[in-house]
Every structure is written in structure tokens, then in C-alpha cells.
């Protein structure tokens, strides 16, 4: 009886407009804010890795101060990437079935493998090769918990002779080269999870993986700039402006590409005007007015585009402090804009009925596993992990560390060029 009353109440709620399939009349969308956080975090991983690989693969020397920070950022976020999914599952205890008995035609099953590959074969291995020499040296000088950690991470390999180090550098570069397509694959698959759903005209789209990859690169690069500037502020040191300017240039061009492809997507949708375009237009213009038009398009794309574009043109005429202010606020806006983009894709795709005759609304809950506090916690967690990483692996009081002062040249022997 009480369930009956609940059903009637749900029916009477103004959250449904027009005709919605009976099974779509649920209190909140099936994939709620947790699934918004999931592609966001994964995208940050992919983007931060691309930033790091600019140093290793493309030998952009000016970016060396942020190489390790970018890799550690990628790792901190990657460790949290599957948590939102896990919390969302009806049966989280069965999650390993995705990898143990995968169904190969499912994008979600393949994501499990790509994730595992990326974490274990790319990121951890690259970090290990990069840090090996430092681990060996720190393990000799550090005591206590730190000493134990560094000794454990050497994995027992203590050979830091010249040839061994040059092999490390070579391996690091090879893994980086393999890592770029892996990072793209990682996030492309997330896009494909949505792009493969042909039942949903908002999602089912060949451009979806491309859009996800590009916005991932943008958000990850913005996160690197953000983290670097924050770290410099926290350590009361001046950021390396050459590195910062270059990062911002890359970020700007990535943003232009991303905005162009997303614009192309909308242009195509509007021009071809297939079945359901009226529904999509309504969702975009009214249901997602604040997150799509204001959040994603204006604040997240247009404003940073104008700010960073201006900086590209008149960089030399603007003082360093003002430049840093513009960079910091632009990257913060971009990070919010990409989060809004994830919201628009995930939630936007569930604000209309697949009957294309009605609309749903979504009011976020506070508590519960679909509540926003859990998502917020999952967004904060990687930053806490990153803080721990910085404390242990980018600490200023560690000897022979190339990042003692951001911008300092790496110590001799750490790269083959200097060996």
C-alpha cells in the first residue's frame, strides 16, 4: 500500500513533462551525479598524462618542471577513477566479473582492461623507471616511514650505474610513447560508453569519443597548470614563467580544437535535424540552460578562450603577476566548464524520455549513495592523494631531486642527454 502511495506521489510530481515511458519514471536518473564524476576524473588522468608526455616524447624542455607533477597527478586521479562506478553498481561485490568473465562486445568490459593496462603497464611503470634512481638514493639517506616506502619502491633493484640509468631513461621514453595512445584509448572508451548508445539521440554519436578525448586533454592540461600554480603558491616560490606560458599555449590550442569539434557536433546535429532534434534543442536551451549555455559554453569555453587568446597575442606586454592571475582564473574556469560538460552529457541524456515525447527533471539528493556529498568527496579524494604524493615524492627537503626548485635543471645523469 505504501509503495502504491509512493508511486502515485511520484506520478503526481511535476518532474515529468509530457509522456515518459513508465520505467523511466524514477526519482532520479539511473546514472546520476556519480557517473558525472567518473568521466571527469578519467579525463583529467588522460590530459595530465598527455602533458607529461610532451616532455618525454616531444622533448619540450621548458615543461620539465611539471613532468613529475603531471605524472603524479595522473596517478592520483587514476587511482580514484573507478570509485564512482563502483559506488554506483547495484552489486559492487561482483565488480571483478567485468574482468574475470568479460563480455567482449561491451564498451564497459573493455574499459576494465584498458584501465588495468594503463595503470599497471603505463603509469606505474613509467613512474618507477623515472623515480628508480631517486628511490635508491633516498632509501640510503631517509629513515622511518619514508625510508621504508622508498626502499619498498626500489623493488630491490639498486643498480644506478651510468648504463643502467640510461636504460631507465630509454624505457621511460618507450613507455611514454606507448602511453599516449593508451591515454587516448582510456578516455576514448569512456566516450564510447556513451557514444555507443544508439537508443539515445543525445549520446549515440560517432563524435562522442573524440569530444571526450579533446575535453579530457583540455581539462588535464588545465589541472596541471592549476596544480603547479597552487603548489608554487603553497611553497611560496615563484612559478617558472617560461614553463607556465608554454603550458598555457598548449592549453589554448587544445581548447580551440575542443571547442571547434564540439561546435561541429552541434552544427551537424542542427543541420541534419534528425528525429529528436526538437527534444535535444529544448533540453539544451531550457533544461541545461545554466550548465550548458552558461557553464560550459560561456564560462568554461568562451571566457577562457578570450582571456588566453588575448594572452597569446599580448603576452609580453602583460606583467608576470597579472599573467599568472589570468592563467589561474582561466584554468579554474576551464576545469569547471569541463565538469559542466560531463554533467551535460550524462545528465542531459537522461532528461528526456526515449519516447521523445516527454521530459524528466533531476534534483540532486544530498545524502545517500546517489547524493552530491559522495560525489564531492570522490572529487576531493584525488587531491588528497596527490598531496600525499607531493609530500613523499616531490618533497623539497629530499636531496638530489630535480624538482627541489621548479625550473631547476635536472641533475646530471637522469637523462641520456646529460649522462
Amino acid at each position, binding site marked *: 500500500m505504501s*509503495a*502504491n502511495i*509512493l*508511486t*502515485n506521489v*511520484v*506520478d503526481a510530481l511535476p518532474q515529468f513533462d*509530457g*509522456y515518459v*515511458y*513508465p*520505467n*523511466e*519514471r*524514477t526519482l532520479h536518473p*539511473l*546514472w546520476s551525479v556519480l557517473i558525472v564524476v567518473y568521466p571527469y576524473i578519467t579525463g583529467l588522468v588522460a590530459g595530465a598524462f598527455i602533458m607529461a608526455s610532451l616532455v618525454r616524447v616531444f622533448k619540450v624542455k621548458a615543461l620539465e618542471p611539471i613532468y613529475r607533477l603531471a605524472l603524479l597527478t595522473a596517478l592520483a586521479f587514476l587511482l580514484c577513477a573507478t570509485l564512482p*562506478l563502483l559506488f*554506483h*553498481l*547495484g*552489486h*559492487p561485490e*561482483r565488480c571483478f*566479473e*567485468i*574482468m*574475470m*568473465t*568479460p*563480455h567482449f562486445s*561491451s*564498451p*564497459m*568490459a573493455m574499459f*576494465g582492461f584498458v584501465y*588495468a593496462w594503463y595503470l*599497471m*603497464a603505463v603509469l606505474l611503470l613509467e613512474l618507477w623507471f623515472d623515480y628508480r634512481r631517486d628511490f635508491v638514493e633516498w632509501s640510503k639517506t631517509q629513515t622511518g616511514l619514508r625510508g621504508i616506502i622508498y*626502499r619498498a619502491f*626500489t*623493488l*630491490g*633493484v*639498486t*643498480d644506478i650505474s651510468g648504463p*643502467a640509468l640510461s*636504460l631507465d631513461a630509454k624505457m621511460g621514453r618507450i613507455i611514454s610513447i606507448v602511453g599516449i595512445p593508451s591515454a587516448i584509448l582510456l578516455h576514448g572508451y569512456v566516450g564510447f*560508453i556513451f557514444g*555507443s*548508445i*544508439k*537508443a539515445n539521440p543525445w*549520446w549515440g554519436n560517432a563524435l562522442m569519443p573524440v569530444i571526450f578525448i579533446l575535453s579530457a586533454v583540455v581539462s588535464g592540461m588545465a589541472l596541471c597548470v592549476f596544480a603547479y600554480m597552487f603548489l608554487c603558491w603553497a611553497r611560496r616560490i615563484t612559478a617558472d614563467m617560461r614553463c607556465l606560458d608554454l603550458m598555457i599555449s598548449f592549453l589554448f590550442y587544445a581548447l580551440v580544437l575542443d571547442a571547434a569539434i564540439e561546435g561541429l557536433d552541434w552544427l551537424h546535429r542542427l543541420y541534419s535535424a534528425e*528525429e529528436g532534434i526538437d527534444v535535444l534543442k529544448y533540453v539544451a536551451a531550457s533544461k541545461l540552460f545554466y550548465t550548458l549555455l552558461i557553464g560550459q559554453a560561456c564560462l568554461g569555453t568562451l571566457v577562457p578562450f578570450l582571456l588566453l587568446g588575448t594572452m597569446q597575442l599580448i603576452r609580453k606586454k602583460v606583467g608576470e603577476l597579472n599573467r599568472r592571475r589570468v592563467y589561474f582564473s582561466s584554468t579554474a574556469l576551464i576545469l569547471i566548464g569541463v565538469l559542466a560538460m560531463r554533467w551535460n552529457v550524462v545528465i542531459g541524456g537522461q532528461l528526456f*524520455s*526515449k*519516447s*521523445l*515525447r516527454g521530459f524528466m527533471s533531476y534534483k540532486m539528493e544530498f545524502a545517500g549513495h546517489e547524493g552530491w556529498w559522495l560525489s564531492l568527496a570522490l572529487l576531493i579524494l584525488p587531491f588528497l592523494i596527490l598531496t600525499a604524493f607531493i609530500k613523499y615524492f616531490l618533497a623539497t627537503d629530499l636531496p638530489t631531486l630535480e624538482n627541489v626548485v621548479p625550473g631547476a635543471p635536472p641533475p646530471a645523469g637522469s637523462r641520456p642527454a646529460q649522462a
Partner: protein
Amino acid sequence: MSENITRRAVLKNLAAIAGGILAMPAARTCKAGVQNVLASSNAPAGYDPFQHKWLMAFDVDRCIGCGLCVEACCEENAVPEGHWRTWIERYVIKKPEAGSGKTRGETVVDSPDGGKEGFPRLLIPKEEILKSFFVPKMCNLCEHSPCTQVCPVGATFDAPDGAVLVDKSYCIGCGFCIQACPYGCRFLNPETHTADKCSLCYHRITRGLKPACVEICPSQARIFGDLKNPAPGLENDPLQQFIAKNKVEELKPSLGTGPRLAYAGLDEVVR
């Protein structure tokens, strides 16, 4: 710490561990394959799914929207409140406004409580209505079912006899299949936390009974049959006869899911 641990040795060990982990899915897949062959569904022993091909057809003009099929389905399958394995939609197409140059006006669709209690009196005045009809909906038994395609663990599968089933002891409850179904036929069962849908009353049809909705329909709007075992002489089989005598169509054919449900008397506004 011994100096003779080389990177080569460490990498070898790591590779061995990774190899072991990678080999496990293959082993588990083999095991699952064997289990699949030997597993029992809720079909009785001796039921061979390869000897049947079940299909449902709808005579839209016969449906009176009484809701008995919905009620019977919910009773038979203990469908949780607020969710539906089958439901009825009422379509009301209004007359076009005078001088609008259109053949029809606005289409209003409703399905209060899935049509379980029948339908309330229409609020639209009679003289404004061009035509109105009921459409029963359920799993479309797709040939290329998108729900099966996207399931990450293979918990939902196409049975050889045409039913699309969910193994609730295996489903991880990710909801991917629910998103992938274009017809809104699936839901997340709030009691089992797994995907749920019409099973064609698999426990009944494998014992020679008809699905509950077909059994109870007072107007014979639902026609159910076995394409591999028609009644002797094709002309005696109700399903074959129905297909032969009517122009039938499917829902959302453009999506390429190959829905097998056959509807006769469908209007273009039905989605």
C-alpha cells in the same frame, strides 16, 4: 638487500604476475562456457531451447486498454511497484486546427500506472479527438538486442528460443542495458538491485503454458506462438495466420535492433 636482484628479474616477475592475471579471464570464460552448457534456467529439465522460437504479435485494434495483462504480469512475476515488464499506452490524436493545413493535430500519450488499473476518462473533449487507440508494450525480443550487446559481464543474453533473459545472480547492476534499450522495457529492480525485464514468462512457456499477459487478455490482442512448432498445417496456427493476414510492422526499425514483436494496425505516431 641483495645487489644481484636485477631489473630484468623484477620485470620478469612482474610480467609473470601480469600474465597470470591476464590468463585468469580466459580460464574463467572457459569455466563460464562450461557452466552455460550445463546450467539450468528456470526451464524444466528436458526443455531444449534450440527446438523453439517464441514470438508475440499484437493486434492493436483489439486492445481495449483494460490493463488485465499488466496486472497479470505484475502478479505472475512479482514485479516491484512502480516498474513494468509490460504496459499499455493510450494514444489520442487530436483533430488539426482549422486552416492549419495539417492532417492531424497534437498527439497526447499517457500510461497512468502502466495502464494497470485501466485508463481514466479523457480530459480532452470528444469533438476535438481525431482518433484514439491503445498500444501494449513489452520487450521487443530484438534480433540484435542492444541490451545484450552492452552488458559488460554477459548477465543478459539472447536465449536460442528468442527470449532475452537476465541472470540476476550474475548481473552487476550497472544499468548499461537499461540505457541501451530504446523501448524503455528494462528497469533496475529495487529489491534485487539487478536489471529486470519481460522474460516472456519463461517459467510458463517452457512448460507448455502461455505467458500470463496472453492468457488473460480478454480481447485476444496478444497472439503468442512458437515459430518452430506451429499448429499442424500453417493455416491452423494463430500466430502464422495473424502474420499472413495483417500488414505488420515493428517499433523504431531505424535503430537496426531488429525487434521481432509484430504489431498490426500501428500508427506512425507510436514510438
